[in-house]
């Protein structure tokens, strides 16, 4: 048997400076670590999740220089001087981003595990194309698996966020918003 001795985690010999969610951040870590691991383990940003750590599920997506990347496939060492955005950096001034707000209202988050990655991926889409079609939304999110929702409420939430952003709507965070009706109504609602 070949025995390979890798550097251990406590040997934080690598060091980078990145802009994490708008904040200049220095971090030291073991050089083999992925951005995902450094975010979660060395920087305490556990909002970014993992479902396979092999680049298959999309749950670990973050934005690097505004583009969605799978943080489980990216060495943290490659992120020196880069701009990284995670779910923790989506809201501003204590308010939710319109995408977060719409996801909450429209039932787009069930277990919530794939949600952070889908949110940042959707943000990258809207940053590039403020008015995407349903088909473009489907394409943009096709690398993010969700096992709960069947995706429909996610698509609708992205579309709702587009409307809210266009209206200059800021967050209505604070409490539940009973005013929103689902777009595809229940039988009872249909008859009304």
């Amino acid at each position, binding site marked *: *048997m070949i*025995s390979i*001795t*890798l550097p*251990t*985690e406590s040997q934080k010999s690598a060091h980078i400076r990145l802009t994490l969610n708008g904040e200049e951040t220095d971090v030291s870590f073991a050089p083999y670590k992925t951005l995902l691991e450094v975010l*979660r383990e060395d920087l*305490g940003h*556990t909002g*970014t*999740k*993992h*479902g*396979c*750590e*092999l680049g*298959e*599920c999309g749950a670990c997506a973050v934005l690097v220089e505004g583009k969605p990347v799978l943080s489980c496939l990216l060495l943290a060492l490659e992120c020196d001087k880069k701009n990284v955005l*995670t*779910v923790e950096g*989506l*809201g501003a001034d204590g308010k*939710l981003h319109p995408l*977060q707000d719409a*996801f*909450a*209202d*429209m*039932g787009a*988050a*069930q*277990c*919530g*595990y*794939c949600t952070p990655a889908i*949110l940042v991926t959707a943000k990258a889409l809207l940053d590039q194309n403020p008015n995407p079609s349903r088909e473009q939304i*489907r394409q943009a999110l*096709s690398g993010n*698996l*969700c*096992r*709960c*929702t*069947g*995706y*429909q*409420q*996610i698509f609708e939430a992205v579309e709702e966020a587009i409307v809210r952003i266009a209206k200059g709507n800021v967050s209505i*965070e604070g409490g*539940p*918003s009973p005013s*929103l*009706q*689902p777009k*595809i*109504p*229940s*039988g*009872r*609602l249909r008859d009304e």
Partner: protein
Amino acid sequence: MSDRGEMRVIGVARRRVDARAKVTGQTRFADDIFLPRMAYCKLLRSPHPHARIRKIDTSRAAAHPGVYLVLSGKDLPIEYGILPVSQDEQALCVDHVRHVGDPVAAVVAREELTAFEALDLIDVEYELLTTIADPEEALATPEPRIHDYGEEGNIHKRVSLEFGDVEQGFAEADEVFEDIFFYQGNTHLPIEQHASVGIKDPEGKLTIWSSTQTPHYLHRALAKVLQMPPGHIRVIATPNGGGFGGKSDPFNHEIVVAKAALLLDRPVKICLTREEVFYCHRGRHPVLTKFKTGVKKDGTITGMHLQTLIDGGAYGSYGVASTFYTGALQTTTYHIPRYKFQGCRTFTNKPPCGPKRGHGTVQPRFGQEVQLDKIAEKLSIDPADLRLRIAESSNAVTANFFRLSVVNLSECIRRVVKNSDWKDKFRKLPEGRGVGLACSAYLTGAGLPIYWNKMPHSGVHIKFDRGGGVAVFCGATEIGQGSDDVLAGIVAEVLGLDPFDIRLYTGDTDLGPVDLGSYSSRVTIMAGNAALQAAERGKGFLAEAVAEKIGVAKERLRFAGKRVFDSAAPEKGVTFAEAVCLAEARFGTIGAMGSYTPPKSPALYKGGGVGPSPTYSYTAAVVEVIVNPATGWITVPKIWIAHDIGRALNPTLVRGQVEGSVYMGLGEALMEEQEFRRLPKKLSHALVHKFPSMLEYKSPTSLDMPEVMTELIEEPDPRGPFGAKEVGQGPLLPIMPAVANAVYDAVGVRIDEVPITPEKIVKALAEKKAGREPRFGPSHFPHVDWPEALRVPPPWEGGDGHAVNEAPRPAKGSPEKEKVFSS
């Protein structure tokens, strides 16, 4: 119960109470827990599907720098398992491994990578045994036995039940249909990998956080294996990043980190890799089903005989219950006057199967609904009309003694027929395009707990604060389905508050009363009814104190808008917080308890414990498909579904459950497949998982998901809280057969096997072209030595729910009795 006409929360589509945590990434899943001095655990898993462990030497691993502890089978020898009748697992295999991935040792180290490395330093000597790949091999290969318990050889469980003389039923039929179907196994694939963190708390007791759907059952398993008083163990179910049934068993990794934390006196974490999640499995059983059904010319069913052969995998898990479930619910959708069911589960050397969404009822539902499509065609009756003729009605008692409550199956069928323009499409679309229809029923909570007891299935404690705050404590487990929102919504409705005002403490065995867990679609009805009772009781204290204070009869008081007031003169009243203070001054500290126990079932025969439910949900679906006859490729442009929900407590979440079920059903119908292959003989001929990865285990992406039109049928069910029935599982069931029926409508071939892949369609089309039976599917059902059937006369033949040929059973509560009941 609150006045339904004036409900402010129930029935309103609204943001779930835990939504903010989820969209900000603040929901703390098990692997998000990082504690000071925390060590990491990894498991060494068997590379062989079936072997004896001759020798295990952990000394090199234990000496590796950074390793704190190495455990092997001898450290945790006590057997456990979810069902009292199948205590057949060991946290680390002692002398026998039964599938690739069975754990044999554990390493705990300062760093995860060190633990990984040290796994290579454990020396295990295996003696390879004959591998059993499927039920037919299991029946033919009694030795070597995978387990030394069960019926005989490698047969885990055989059941045989007959409700009325089914041969008489066939004699009275105008036509008798016989069909064999195969439903391939598949897995839950939650995006969250299972994770657990154990600690020895400062008092010396054990706390474990884990991604489990059943903290109460894990609590019991830990107490048994660790030989600790249950009162010294605290299980906290972290919100599950998807469950779907896959986190319902007590797992070896949970027991291992608990033991390691106790030995090391420091926190120990494990997070499974995706490959390991595939080895945990407990997913859909592969099942071969054989249906023999007699019908009159008008479609009336005269009798049905169902046989199921079930591939259980390497352990018992929920399998005994699964076996009964493969024959339980056939009678709940259509009237079947005489019914015979025979089921057989075998052990095989594959990861253990267990409960996945629709538990055990999905596979026979596929066969039943496809066979009905064939019957309708033969009798020249529209399949929707056929089902409307034979649909069960409210308050019926079925041949196998399940008492139905509100049944709106017919209404579901009418709605999907109308919404999909069924009458204009069925057998009328151009070649290559078709529609299919199917229906289903599902439990709203299992009528019996997993271990025999007379205690409530769910309890809720509500605490009232002087400031007007309300805290709800309950064992219910949030797995994404919205159990927290159900509790908050019900309590808020009763007390006239906003759901956002309610604080929730759930899934914690120390804080809340027992709830049996998030399985069998039981939380809404059971925890919901317990919450309703607790809230009403608490409200009673407040009402009495307020009535006294403002001089109004308490019956006239109304709780709404965070106030308690005279319904005849709304300005006369107090704030909710004042009401709590008045009640506390009058009665002392205010709290209330509520609990729920399902009604007694009339199914008194042995095996009648699986299938009864307080009420059943009903679903109908129409699927449209486009099939490319050259490639067999299936595209699904649209699905119409109607679900009999009783009442939608929060329509936003209900719709999500319906569409999520449709999605998962479509995955099972078209692509999801837990497949195995044998290595070449010159290697070891071992049975290995074909693709333990998310890339190769295909599941639908956002590009595969069609538009879904969801309609809810709301007639409140008296058994449900505010009339609510289940929604998390039922809507999955009709999708697979509806796809198969639509493929037949599109290209005229029967695919009697799930998943329905392009390859199978192309093969069936070739058969059709060659003038042979245009079909792909199994053609034979292996011989099983069935035991003598328990004969239970159905209600209309004067039956009382007992079997006429059953040996007297010991009294309830005895150990023997405990074995009879299961999920």
